[in-house]
């Protein structure tokens, strides 16, 4: 038997195997589709908004939607999400208004939400430093006797960071109910996975933390859902954290300021685009007879309308008062905070 390429090793799949996931009825399947379309629409519109000068630099997550939607659908409403900037719009799936996330990318002080309200932490810009936040939250909920689970998202590059190690190790030691979700898209801006690690797979790292490491096809929303659901059940049942490596490929620039033609394998990008995650799922649902043209159009229009309304609302927001620079850093601000302010 031929040696299995590391790329393919233990990769869990649903769509390519034409399987069905236990417990998911037509309504659930459509709800997942709706989330995929909402994220895809957010992303594609944002790139347009950026080109139109309506938002600032934007981190594109095209073809990452399956990893985000599949995993969020496996959570309960009270479970916490700790996003990186690649998951900037994941809160839309929890009811955060599109305008709020657009404000964030517009550099407007209205771009905040209360993490406790949506159980979605603020967007983490530095790499992997939020892993220990998620571990602490999950551990803290466990200490209170709650069954809340947390999930944190990060990329392949993040696994090189000390912060990833410290957070993962602490989650293991405390048996925190945490899912460490690694979106392995093979690129950290221009640095390829092989320059990031000599490990055969990123999931192998889980062994060192005493937790299960699972590999899943990151372009297969149902495989992501299934793997996350199993990890959530284990965490909620007291079985501690799980590391999920979702294998995908970055088919878009890192961000609007990036031109990947200098470094990326363009043939591979074209291949990934042909096999992108929304189309794969759509074809699967059509084969199952769950989705028809009319429903597709309705769901896509609904998402477009959310974005139209979101950008309109964001642009209708008045210019921020410069006095806001002093707001919110402290509950009890030091008396000399405004020293030198000429306002």
């Amino acid at each position, binding site marked *: 038997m031929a040696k299995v390429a590391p790329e393919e090793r233990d990769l869990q799949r649903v769509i390519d195997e034409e399987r069905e996931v236990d417990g998911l009825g037509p309504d659930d399947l459509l709800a997942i589709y709706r989330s995929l379309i909402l994220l895809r629409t957010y992303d594609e519109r944002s790139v347009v908004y950026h080109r139109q000068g309506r938002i600032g630099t934007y981190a594109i997550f095209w073809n990452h939607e399956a990893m985000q939607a599949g995993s969020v659908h496996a959570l309960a409403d009270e479970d916490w999400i700790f996003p990186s900037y690649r998951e900037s719009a994941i809160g839309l799936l929890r009811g955060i208004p599109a305008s709020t996330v657009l404000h964030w990318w517009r550099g407007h002080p209205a771009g905040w939400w209360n993490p406790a309200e949506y159980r979605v932490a603020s967007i983490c810009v530095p790499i992997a430093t939020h892993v220990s936040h998620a571990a602490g939250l999950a*551990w803290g909920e466990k200490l209170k006797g709650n069954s809340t689970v947390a999930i944190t998202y990060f990329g392949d590059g993040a696994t090189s960071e000390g912060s990833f190690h410290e957070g993962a190790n602490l989650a293991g030691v405390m048996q925190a109910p945490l899912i460490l979700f690694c979106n392995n898209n093979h690129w950290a801006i221009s640095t390829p996975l092989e320059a990031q690690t000599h490990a055969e797979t990123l999931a192998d790292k889980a062994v060192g933390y005493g937790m299960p490491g699972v590999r899943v096809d990151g372009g297969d929303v149902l495989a992501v859902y299934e793997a996350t659901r199993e990890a959530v059940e284990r965490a909620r049942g007291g079985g501690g954290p799980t590391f999920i490596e979702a294998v995908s490929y970055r088919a878009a620039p890192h961000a609007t300021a990036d031109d990947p033609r200098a470094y990326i394998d363009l043939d591979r990008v074209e291949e990934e685009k042909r096999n992108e995650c929304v189309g794969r799922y759509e074809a699967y649902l059509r084969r199952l007879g769950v989705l028809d043209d009319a429903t597709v159009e309705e769901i896509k229009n609904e998402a477009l309308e959310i974005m139209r309304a979101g950008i309109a609302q964001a642009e209708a927001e008045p210019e921020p008062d410069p006095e806001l620079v002093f707001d919110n850093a402290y509950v009890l601000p030091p008396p000399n905070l405004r020293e030198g302010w000429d306002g």
Partner: protein
Amino acid sequence: MAEKFLVEAVNDALHVELARDDMVMVMGEDVGRAGGVFRATAGLRERFGENRCVDTPLAEAGILGSAVGLCMAGWKPVCEMQYDAFSYPCLDQLITHVGRYRWRTGGQMEFPLVVRMPYGGGVRAPELHDDSPEAYYVHTPGVKVAIPSTPADAKGLLAAAIRDPDPVVVLEPKLIYRGEKQEVPEGEHVVPLGEARLAREGTDVTLVAYGAMVPVCERAADALEGEATVEVLDLRSLRPLDEDALLASASKTGRAVVVQEAPRTAGFGAEIAAILAEKAILDLHGPVLRVTGFDVPYPYWKIEDRYMPSVERVVGAARKLLEF
């Protein structure tokens, strides 16, 4: 009122605050089973259980990072960094998250965590057990910094830090952890952040200090007896800073010497000197002088006494100013 060493007062504060509020917890390296390498957390694990006095993995950034998450779950973590210089990895979390997270949430979430650590030199220890890192902390927006110099203040400032809704770093002068036993109020005792203490009243020159440099300044004041009456201002908290007390003292004496054991450049003494230059220059009879450590790695302990600001160096600076 019982007499206690400074480190015993820290321990007392932790006992009182953990008993007062069920959501206060202590975490750090060797704080539980061992009770801390300086015994600051002794007895907490036995009294409050292993979930409220937690031996963490050896990971300073992970300790502070998980404390951020614990705050989001409603806890009020008191994180011990085992030594001053061991805290440097936690600066990553402090700068990128601890000082920013409330701001990031539009003021909707609070992060009432405390980082406490023994700091400073003079204890005949190996490299990186001697640093005075206060400038890194006070330069971080969103974070408050307190430094006690007496047992009573060690208890009261730590209690204030734990009760403060903002993140607070408390630097404890390890040189005087077991210096002089002093009276410490029993039970709940809070010293508000942002109120300096007049350690000694005088009229001719003000020595501005905090932490382990306060007793050095008091000895310098003794040495100058007969030549000048010396005021010693113990800042107690660097942010919020009691500017009123600083300006009042400087304008009264017209002379100020700032003493810090941290390296000289961009140290907190420079901030004090700048404030006095901006707001008190017409009251001053001479320049603000600094007595500080030097811009070198903290030295081998055989020669550390020449690095640390000494009574002689402080007296010398005061005389220079008196004769200016």
